[in-house]
């Protein structure tokens, strides 16, 4: 029997890995992947709770999160392509025309 907390802590770990990825990765695509990681972590929490609560709406939520993630990735990658076109780089540290 795996206690709920294992899932939750695992999920929290993944979430923080996502946050850290955002903070330390330089490649925009990798950063975006970190966000996906965060969403996945949340999904794990949902499913874990759903199981614990015996409520399927958690699953439904995961479903919607996935849809949203898909939509986001379509748009996000589009944006990344647009940025790459104009700046010829994927290094996030070099994308700082707008500041101060």
């Amino acid at each position, binding site marked *: 029997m795996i206690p709920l907390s294992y899932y939750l802590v695992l999920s929290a770990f993944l979430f923080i890995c996502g*946050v850290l990825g*955002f*903070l*330390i990765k*330089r490649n925009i695509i990798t*950063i975006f992947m970190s966000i996906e990681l965060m969403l996945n972590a949340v999904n794990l929490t949902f499913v874990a709770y759903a199981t614990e609560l015996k409520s399927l709406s958690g699953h439904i939520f995961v479903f919607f999160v996935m849809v949203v993630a898909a939509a986001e990735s379509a748009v996000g990658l589009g944006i990344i392509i647009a940025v790459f076109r104009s700046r010829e780089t994927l290094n*996030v*540290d070099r*994308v*700082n*025309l*707008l*500041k*101060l």
Partner: protein
Amino acid sequence: MDQNLNLWIIPLLPLAGAAINGLLGKRFPNKLVATIALFFTACSFGYFCYVASLFSHLTQIPHIESYGTWMQAGSFHVEFGAYLDQLTMIMLGVVTGVGFLIHVYSVGYMAHEGGYYRFFAYLNLFMFFMLTLVLGSSYLLMFVGWEGVGLASYLLIGFFFRKNSAAQAGKKAFITNRIGDFGFLIGLFLIIQHWGTLQYDSVFQAVSGYGVETHAGLFTAIGICLLIGACGKSAQIPLYVWLPDAMEGPTPVSALIHAATMVTAGVYMVTRSNSIFSRSPHAMLVVACIGAATALFAATMGITQTDIKRVLAYSTISQLGYMFLACGVGAYTAGVFHLMTHAFFKALLFLSAGSVIHAVGGEQDMRNMGGLRKYIPWTFWVMTAATIAIAGIPPFAGFFSKDEILWKTFSSESLRPVVGAGFNKFLWLIGIITAGMTSFYMFRQWFMTFFGEYRGAKHDHEADHGHAAPAHDDHGHGTPHESPAIMIAPLVVLAILSFCGGWVGIHNKFDGYLSPVTKIQVANTPAAEEAVMPGEKAPAEESGSNTELILMITSVGVALIGFGLAWYLYKAHPEKPAAIVKSLGGLYTTVANKYYVDEFYGATIVKPILLLSTKVFWKGVDVTLIDGALNGSAAGAQETSQGVRRMQSGNIRSYAGWVAVGAAVVIGYMVYVGVAR
């Protein structure tokens, strides 16, 4: 109930003249301007005569008229009104009479000056304010006149406004007067605070319930405050400095304002307030001391002056000191008596000095005169009369009044509560020394001007001469010449008055006339009667009159000594003075430079204030401190703003970092709340 005398007409007439000339005079020919000015002044004098004729029929004196409320706030209110008693009558007479004469004189004197209409408008305006001053029924109206004559004086001193010195002198006069007015105002506030009114009748009514102060108290405070005002207006120590400079004004102005009328306002005020002063021996003492000190001090300066008008100016200060001395010893009537005679002979002196200046083409330095007797005999004679009068040689007017003052100084008991009889003797001594000095410098002037050889150049150096009244160039005279009749006529009238004006004082007639004004009831002092009404009745009549006679002879003697000395030094041995000057050295320089008082004031008051204002207040407090703090905080905000900007580095990872920190804080707090609760 007495009939309504419509006293307001007296001051309003000159005001009408001033208004007409001031607003429209620019387009009028000079003749018309002069006519208007003379007409209204004459009417004023005429109306005064009419009032005078009715005065003796009045059942109630003081005769008070009220024309409506001027201002009101809370329970305090001041009325427009007139207050007519014997003192007012004398002052009205002097002001309108001498004023009229000087107007007449001015018609001739100013004939060739620019701004003719302006001059007469100012002069009439002065008359208005001076009459308001003496006629007003409350201290506040007196203050109105007080400030008003200050204004007129300012305008008239600065009449030749293109001359910087004239403008400067006008300003100095006004501001010095303002310092005095400051004291006056405080005095008024004290009166309001205690009696809630400034109307003479109410104040005097309220005051009558008090006795003589044994210690300095309310009355002393009021008295000294009023005295400060009087010092300003009447050019007493320490506020006398403006009067010599005021000689920058046209000579008739000096005669009217700075000799005959305005400067005596202080004496009038003290006399008018006698019921307050008499209740405070301390204040009286201060008045007497200031008077005596001024008399002596100014006389010493008079000796060294070479400018004909400045000699007269210092003489005026000195004579005003006499009047203050009189008031200080409780001899108000003597003071007013001297005020009157002084008005005659000093006006005459100034006017004839003006005539002299006129004769020699604007020259004022006596060292450049001499021997004018031959050229301007009329002037010479009237000036002689005036000089004798001021020197105090009988039977000229000055003798009577001056003698009265000296006698009262010697014998008065009103200072007895604070000082011993010896002090009176001391004051008398100062008076008598001053009298001698007065005689000396007046005759010095007389000799220097009219005797010896004419030392004047041929008037081609006019352009580079600082004191020159600018508009005399069109005369083009080579030799001194006599003034026109319109100028001589008033001189003659004044000469007659200087000669016989003092006779009204014989047998204490004048004293008796004025005594209702100065007679006051003091509740708690048994000796009050004699203390405040010296001369009214003397217990030791016989010994008193003996002493009086001795003193009289002494004073005449001193005057003659002064004359003799002047004759010796300036007629018989004109080379002597220079030697004496040399032997005196620094002392002489000090006195000739008026004891460096102006310089002293400048260095200790004016300069530090200007410096303080500029360096400390303006540049220091305003610019550096307040604005500095503001600009500093503005700069601080800008700095902070730059800091906030730097947060906005443009780097997404940094932004995420901020979000993470924010998240940590938010989560940390919420967890804390959730767990701790």
